[in-house]
Every structure is written in C-alpha cells, then in structure tokens.
C-alpha cells in the first residue's frame, strides 16, 4: 500500500497574480525541511501539495511532524494512494484505516470527485464505502452529524486517496515571502514567541542576542541557541549574531543616572541591532515587548526606545496578556527552555528603581555622557556569528 502526505494550502490560495511565487517558496521550504528523511517527490496540483516517498526508507512519520510546522499549510494528513477502481478503494479504506476504525464507535464517509469520468458520483461513493465499512467493522454505527471519525475518499485525476481526519497545519504564509527582519532575542519567554509570530507572517529571521560576559555565562548563550533552534523548526534556518555588551553596560552604569539605565541600554541595543540588520539586508526589527509588562515596556519607555531606531520595529506581542504569550510558547515548545534560570544581559544590571515614565528629552540629555556611535561600532565589529539550523 502506498502512503503519502497530502498538504492543503492555507492563505496562499487567496493571493492573486503573485500566487505562483508564494507556492514556489513554500515548495522550497517543504523540500528543505524534508532533508535527511529520505527521498521524497514534492509537487503541487489543484491547491494540494503531494509529498510522495520515493523509497521505503523515507521517514513519513517524522516528515509529517516537521511539515506540521511549516507556515503556509492549512492542514495535513497521511493518505493511502490507490488506483481508481471502487473495489480497490474500498479494500484500501478498510485496511489502511483499520486501527482508528476499530477504536471508535461512530463514523461517516465524505468524498470528493474531481475526476468526473469516475463512474460513481460523490454521494454514491459515500454510500457504497459506508455500507462496506459497516460490514467490515461490526463496532461501527453511522453518525453523519457528530461522528467520532470521518473517512475521506478523494478521486482525483492521477489517483484516488483515502485518509482519515486531517491535522491542522501551522497556518500563516510561507517564510521568505514577507521580507527579512532581525529579532532581538534575550532568552526569556517573549522574544521567541515574537519571532515565531513574525515568521508566521512570512518574515525570514535574523537573530541578534546581547551577551554580557563575564556577567552572563556560556549557558545563557547556549539557551538562546537552543531557543532559536526550536523557533527554527517553524522559521527555517537563520544566523544568530551575538553582541558582546558588557562594556556598554559598564559605561552606562558609570556615566548615566541609575534610574535611566534600562531605557538607555535598550536604546543602544536598538542602534546595534539596526546596524546589524541593515548589513544583513533586513527591513525591520522585531522585539518581544508587551505593553506595561515591566518598567521598560511602559508606553513612555517604549517611546524612548523607539526613537533610537531608524527602521520600523515590529512588536507583535504589544497587546497580548502574559498568559496568551505563555500559551504560545508552550505550543511551540520554547517555554521549558525559557524558564531556565540563567542570568541574562537584562538582569545583571537592573536598577533598584527604574524610571517608569522617562521623558525622551531627559534620556537624550543623559545619553550625551556616552560616545554612543563609537560604542555601537565597537559592539558590531566584535559580533560573533552562529548559524542556526533546525534539528534533524
């Protein structure tokens, strides 16, 4: 019995003339994620992508797992491909779906016939398949309204396909169709979620991480690499830039008012990130800021931070509650990593009483004590590049 994976396209189908380029990017992303799982044939027809193993060693199970994280796919299912004869289809349905059908009580059959040459029409296919499966599985009853399980039969041009309930795909639009942006990633819960949200909208990512050795450890940096690897399962490959930031922090501590430390630090981070982003051909920055979450994320503080950047800053979490952010981070499997308790660059120099409503003009004034341009240049010159490849 030949088993394949069927992928239904998501929002891509709504695109007009540039639909083709969206689909091509998606196919490329799919092929890349199947690397190392054996030989597959991937092609698109009638708004469905067919992923067909070329040999026995191809790992369909892992392929499905990986593809469930590829943006641009609305739903996916494993299916059995059979010849277009009703008897063959019936045999295949009973055999292929034996496991789930023996485990449930009620079912129904849905069918779709795009090959109008096929002798039976859709209602006839349903009726015949329903009757046959009832005779094969005495445990089953038909329930067309709330079935435990739905058997789907699709008669298409090339072949017929039998499958069960489809799994929901990752949704979104294919990564690479939405430009490129740099995510400022700390190692906390929020920034990986922000990165994931923008990747879901087709944005290709570059990561910028600020490390403060010796105040922070190699482990903190490893944690960020691990987080990005998890995000990479969705967002694809990316480069991580680690910026040595301790000297900047020491300079701010020594020369600026303590209560403005955090906001000035964040402005310098923005400048460094922007410089790296421009070198990498990015059109925007992404942060995990959520309004009011901490002192540096009040509206006033964000105004000050934002003023330091000369490119758009996307803040996809800005209106989200912590609980919603945590839910997403659990879903994309970054939560457990995020809560590992290592010092990061934002926690080592936290002032006792940060100013929650800093005014931009005072901040700019205080910043004059620093040679910001030189500090930024030095940071960017000493940046370390690490390629991030999704696991597998």
């Amino acid at each position, binding site marked *: 019995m030949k088993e394949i994976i069927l992928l239904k396209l998501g929002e891509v189908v709504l695109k007009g003339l540039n639909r083709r380029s969206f689909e091509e990017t998606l196919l490329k992303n799919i092929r890349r994620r199947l690397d190392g799982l054996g030989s597959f044939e991937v092609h698109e027809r009638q708004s469905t992508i067919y992923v067909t193993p070329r040999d026995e060693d191809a790992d369909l199970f892992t392929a499905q797992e990986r593809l469930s994280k590829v943006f641009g796919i609305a739903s996916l299912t494993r299916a059995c491909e059979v010849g277009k004869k009703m008897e063959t289809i019936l045999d295949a349905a009973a055999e292929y779906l034996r496991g789930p059908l023996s485990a449930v009580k009620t079912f129904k059959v849905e069918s779709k016939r795009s090959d109008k040459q096929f002798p039976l029409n859709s209602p006839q296919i349903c009726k015949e398949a329903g009757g046959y499966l009832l005779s094969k599985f005495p445990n089953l009853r038909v329930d067309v309204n709330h079935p435990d399980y739905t058997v789907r039969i699709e008669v298409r041009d090339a072949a017929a396909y039998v499958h069960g309930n489809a799994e929901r795909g990752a949704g979104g639009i294919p990564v690479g169709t939405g430009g490129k942006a740099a995510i400022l990633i700390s190692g906390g819960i929020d920034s990986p979620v922000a990165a994931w949200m923008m990747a879901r909208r087709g944005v290709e990512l570059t990561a910028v991480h600020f490390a403060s050795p010796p105040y922070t450890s190699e482990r903190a940096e*490893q944690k960020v690499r691990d987080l990005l690897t998890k995000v990479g399962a969705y967002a694809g490959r990316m480069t991580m830039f680690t910026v040595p930031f301790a000297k900047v922090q020491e300079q701010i501590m020594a020369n600026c008012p303590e209560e403005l430390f955090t906001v000035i630090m964040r402005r310098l981070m923005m400048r460094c990130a922007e410089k790296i982003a421009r070198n990498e051909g990015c059109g925007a920055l992404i942060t995990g800021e959520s309004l009011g979450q901490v002192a540096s994320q009040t509206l006033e503080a964000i105004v000050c931070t934002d003023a330091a950047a000369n490119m758009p800053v996307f803040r996809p979490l800005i209106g989200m509650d912590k609980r919603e952010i945590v839910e997403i981070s659990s879903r994309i499997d970054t939560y457990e990593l995020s809560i590992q308790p290592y010092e990061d660059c934002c926690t080592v120099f936290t002032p006792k009483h940060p100013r929650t409503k800093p005014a931009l003009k005072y901040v700019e004034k205080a910043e004059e004590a620093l040679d910001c341009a030189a500090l930024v240049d030095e940071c960017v010159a000493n940046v370390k590049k690490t390629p991030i490849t999704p*696991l597998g």
Partner: protein
Amino acid sequence: MSELYFDNSSTTRVCREAAEKVMETMTENYGNPSSLHSLGFRAERAMDEARAAVAARLGAEKEEIYFTSGGTESNNIALFGAAHALKKRGNHIVTTQIEHPSVLNVMKRLEQEGFRVTYLKPDSFGHITAEQITGAVNGETILVSLMCVNNEVGSILPVEAAAQAVRAAGSPALVHVDAVQAFGKLPLRPRQAGIDLMSVSAHKIHGPKGVGALYVRRGVHLEPHVFGGGQEKNLRPGTEGMPLIAGFGAAVGALPEARAELRTMEELNAYCRGKLETIPEVTFNSAPDALPYILNFSAVGVRAETMLHFLSDRGIYLSSGSACSRGRESHVLSAMGLARERIASALRLSFSRYNTKEEIDVFAGALREGLSGLTRRPL
C-alpha cells in the same frame, strides 16, 4: 589461545570509541554538568551530545531521553512509575511469561501491592501474537509491558500491536517496551509505534556497563521513586554518571547502520545454522524468524553447563540459558513448553559485529568434539 566471544547478549566488549570517550571524560572533561562554570558547561554539552545520539537512534527528541544506570533501572523506573501514576484509573497490567527478571520481579511486587497481572504465554518458539495482546487488554488495563526481542531465544514480539490494542480498548494504559536486546539492532521508532516508554542499555551495544536510558514519550507522567537534586528532570536524580553517559553516546555513534548490520548477521546466523544442522544431537530453540544476533539450540545428551565449561577451556564463550538466571532452569524455555532434556542442554550463541564465519567453524568443531568426548549423563 585465541578468544571466541559468542556471548554478546550477556554483554559486549567496549568499542574503542566508547573507551576513549570514557577516559577523556574521567581525566579531562570531568566537570559536574550542574556546575555553573565553564567546565560544568562543557560537561553539560557532552551529556547533551550523548542524549542527542541516543535520541536520534530512537527517532525521538532529546527531551524524551533519561539516563539511568542500565536496563534494570530503566525497567523499574518505567513500570513502578507508570503503575503508580495510573493506579486510580485501573489496576490491570499485561506482560508476558518470557520477560527479563527486571520486569517479572517488578510485576511480582506490583501484584503484592494489589495490581492484577496477566502473563501471556509464548508458543514453542517464544512467539507472542498480536491477537493475544489485543485479547488481554481491556478498559481496566493501565500498563502493557513487552520486550521487543527475547534475550534467550531472540524471538521478536509484536510490540506495535500493543499500542493499537490499547487504543482499540479505549484504555488509559501506557505501553512499555524493554528494548535492551533490540536497541542498535532493529530500527526502533517508539513515537511512531505509539510506545510510551522504552528501556535501552549501553553494554549490549559495545558501551560501558552501568548506564542505560529510558525513553519517556513527551507528555507522559511517571511517579518518581528516587528523590534528590533534580537531575534528569527528577526522574533519576543524582550527579550524572558522566564517563559512562559519554561512553554510551560514543558507542551509539559508532553503531553501524541497523539494517546493513542486520543483513550481515542474517548471513552469519544462516552460516552457523548450516554448520550445526549437520550435527544430529542439535535442535534449534530459536525460530527461523528470530533476531539473527541470537541463536539458541540444544545439544541433547550433554548438560549445558558441562558443555559450556568444555568450550570455555578452549577459549570459546557462550551462555547456557540466560546469564542472568545462572544455574536455574530457564523460565523462557519452560514457558515455551520445551522438554526437560532440551532445556537442560540449551546453549545460546549471541553474535556481534566482531564475529566471523571462521570463528563459527572453530566453534562447530569444538562442539562436535565435546559431544563425542564428554560423558553423557541422564539429564
């Protein structure tokens, strides 16, 4: 005298890659993976690497692999952990009569605690059928524990049927597979097969003794029984046995591709069967479809232990029954319903990638010599 080692299901010679890694981890990369400093970080990285190697071999995620002190401990953590976590959902457990003592003795203990255990009986070749499993699992079942490959006769059990049976019965049961004899030899994919827990061991695959792992499917909760400093996510706390863990990882890394080695073993096994077939006293206890790494046979007429010492004097090492139940009548062969004289004269050859056809020639010659020279006593 040359050394012919045919007892690889008892334990194996540690491969060079693993031995070197153990040495390096004892003398250079000796940090505690929990330490914050960079030596600790390096140790953590080494542990991570070993975990990734084991995970890859099982088609699992790193987070699903827990290091233990070996197969016995993996089985204990899995079985007590699962039974105690699910005791409010039911009290029925399904296993087989031919499991390793580290499963059977846990089952005895669980019976004393009030669990009901069904022990499936094998046929005369050590087979258990999918139908037997399906028939035994019901809505009250909370745990199904099967070995993947029997350690004495090499029979392969239909472990995938267990997960299907559990689903079909609508039971909350967890499925545990003791894969100590199968790991590194058969392609194992617990996640795909719907298996929740899987025990593996290092010293059966040319790794060091004293280390193994338990696969715990993501989302499965086990009740812990050892308490300590939180290592291995509280399931098996205690400072990690780094040299052994790193050696385990290296041994896994040095494993040949399972399918290719399986073909080599099939050839070696067929060659050996061909040689032994011509000896009239020999009856095979391993089925033709058993895992080719293991060949159990009876050389009727001479007690297994007598023959074992005779061969041992000639530098040829194998097992009588199973090394774990030294001196006792094999519970596996008894469950298979073999005649007493066959059980008493049963010998187990177990191969590794280091065995050759020439070695089998020498062994077959020595066996013939033993059969004609040794005094036969009524068994």
